[in-house]
């Protein structure tokens, strides 16, 4: 595979930027922050204050290797390998710092990764994704990479090397809540998208067939899209609350003015536009000659729709579904404000308690979930998208 983008001896431009930023982060920003308890302001520690010189030097050695690779090595595979090794070293080092700073048995002190850590992680992550992009992997390989990262991350959590870090401390305290909110989060995101797909595809087909409906429908859905999420949650609380009060059966179903019902409904409404619009665009993209030939050969209208039009439009429709799934995974976080649950619970609790670690406990899995779904659905879209379609 030809992956060379830089000539021998030339300096890689992205590598130069990443190296500069990384060095600056290492020198100027705190790598690790120590707090005597959860809400006290932190106190920055440099690595040499925390870890024995051998570990510090090994870590710096790996970072220097990463910098040199980023600057001067053209092979994307090598760049990826070095970036991943450096990420692993970063994880081990921050874990070791957590261990070193936490007195045995003490559950009160908090050791958090400092801004220096996050910037370094960002630089190495960019170096790795850039290398993957240069490798131009097929959809299958990308899913394989995703699975590999998931396994590695899972192994890192399971091994306990990160257990003394503040985020993991928060997790330990909230472990059962975390599993529950994760289920809520996924249920609300997937449920709203599924419901939207079931409604939006027929609406899209109708808009395609009846051009007069198109502008009005897309305009109305567009209008919904412009309402901010919190406002929409609020607006929906009123009718749903009234409905629950008036019809006891509805309340028995768990539908109330607050909670999951308005959240899922709002997310459902947000999801309609991208799926309807993409269905219309996907169907419009099907060549009229293809449909004419199909009809001329004696396919029924239903056969033309299911065997020809929807199959040909499917990659575009799936792109719409990918957009709303990733969007909803993010928006569900806000739904915690109206008591709907999800990872947003930790985010808002954390904000209220000025406990940034708790915010991270909600934010990091949300990002990971959205990212994973994006990679999976992108791979799916690409694998069904033949060059002809």
């Amino acid at each position: 595979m030809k992956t060379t983008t830089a000539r021998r001896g030339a300096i890689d431009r992205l590598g130069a930027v990443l190296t500069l930023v990384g060095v600056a982060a290492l020198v100027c920003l705190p790598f690790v922050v120590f707090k005597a308890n959860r809400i006290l302001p932190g106190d920055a520690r440099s690595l040499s204050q925390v870890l024995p010189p051998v570990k510090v030097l090994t870590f710096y050695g790996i970072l220097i290797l990463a910098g040199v690779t980023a600057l001067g090595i053209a092979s994307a595979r090598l760049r990826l390998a070095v970036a991943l090794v450096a990420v692993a070293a970063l994880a081990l080092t921050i874990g070791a710092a957590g261990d070193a700073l936490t007195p045995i048995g003490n559950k009160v002190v908090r050791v958090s990764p400092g801004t220096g850590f996050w910037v370094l992680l960002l630089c190495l992550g960019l170096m790795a994704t850039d290398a993957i992009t240069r490798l131009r992997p097929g959809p299958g390989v990308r899913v394989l990479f995703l699975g590999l990262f998931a396994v590695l991350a899972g192994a890192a959590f399971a091994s306990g090397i990160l257990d003394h870090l503040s985020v993991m401390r928060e997790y330990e305290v909230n472990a059962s809540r975390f599993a529950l909110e994760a289920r809520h989060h996924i249920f609300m995101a997937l449920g709203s998208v599924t419901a939207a797909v079931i409604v939006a595809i027929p609406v899209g087909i109708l808009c395609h067939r009846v051009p007069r409906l198109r502008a009005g429908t897309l305009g109305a859905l567009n209008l919904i899209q412009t309402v901010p999420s919190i406002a929409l949650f609020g607006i929906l609380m009123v009718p749903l609350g009234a409905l629950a009060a008036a019809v006891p059966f509805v309340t028995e179903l768990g539908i109330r003015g607050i909670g999951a019902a308005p959240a899922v409904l709002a997310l459902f409404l947000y999801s309609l536009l991208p799926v309807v619009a993409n269905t219309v665009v996907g169907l419009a993209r099907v060549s009229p000659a293809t449909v004419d030939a199909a009809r001329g050969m004696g396919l029924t209208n239903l056969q033309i729709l299911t065997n020809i039009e929807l199959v040909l439009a499917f990659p575009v429709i799936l792109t719409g579904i990918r957009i709303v799934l990733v969007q909803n995974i993010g928006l569900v976080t806000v739904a915690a404000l109206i008591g709907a649950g999800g990872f947003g619970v930790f985010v808002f609790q954390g904000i209220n308690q000025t406990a940034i670690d708790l915010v991270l406990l909600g934010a990091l899995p949300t990002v990971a979930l959205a990212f994973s779904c994006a990679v999976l659905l992108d791979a799916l879209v690409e694998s069904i998208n033949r060059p002809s379609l």
Partner: protein
Amino acid sequence: MIEIENLTKQYGSATVVDRVSITIAKGSITVIVGTSGSGKSTLLRMINRLVEPSAGRVAIDGKDTTSEPPHLLRRGIGYAIQGHGLFPHRSVAENIATVPRLLGWNAARTRARVEELLRIFQLDPGEFAGKFPYELSGGQQQRVGVARALAAEPAVLLMDEPFGALDPIIRTKAQDDLIEIQRRFGTTIVLVTHDIDEAFRLGDRVAVMSQGQVLQYDRPAMLLTHPADAFISRLTGTGDRAMKLLSLTTAGAAAEAGAASGPKVAAAATLREVLSELVWSGAPEATVVDADGMARGRLTLAGVLAHGKPG
């Protein structure tokens, strides 16, 4: 046989096809020619009810086309269009098998038919059956489009500008192939084109349409020698009408008996080509030979020229 009686299509107040009555003989090629907007495509599409007539009737082999649901009617009629309309997500073999599958043919029969058609259209089944339309050249796509239209052995084949997207050389080849296939299967072909040369080349009979009406429906030679009105003279062109007329007769049909000398011309060649050969070689006569190279007769310059005169 296709009988079209008083067929009319109106969209609002506009009459697109106006009381057209023509009878198309079984096993012939009929070409409907006209400018864009003349109603020729609409007329064609009313035969398989892609367009429902406002008035009039169509009968195929005596059976009214409205006697069965349109999708069942269409499965018995081949349909090929400009830009081929192949299904981009289906392989060549799957595309050709479309109508046999709709008709419930078993897999073995369908596969045998697909392979037969691919061979007839000079596409090696081993190489082409599994390919997708985007992997084919324009000419190959067009051939697959016609093969697909013929898959279920229809008695009638409707073609709407089927060669419109092809370059001139491939187009000529496709026209030759169509004539050969029509002879092989005896299919009744109705073809729409705006190209008068294509109409003359392919049509046993040509229907000239303008503003929804058929102005003249006749053998090509009659359009040249006895045009019904000035529009048809303009359409056929008067500048080279003698040459056009010569191109409608083959050397084999015009050959005279007797010992021959001069350059050899194929019996299948048109008189226009024979004349060109005589002018080029300076010879006063040519030897007409059949496909085996056996002399079949002779053609003198005067004999050829006589065919270029009306009457």
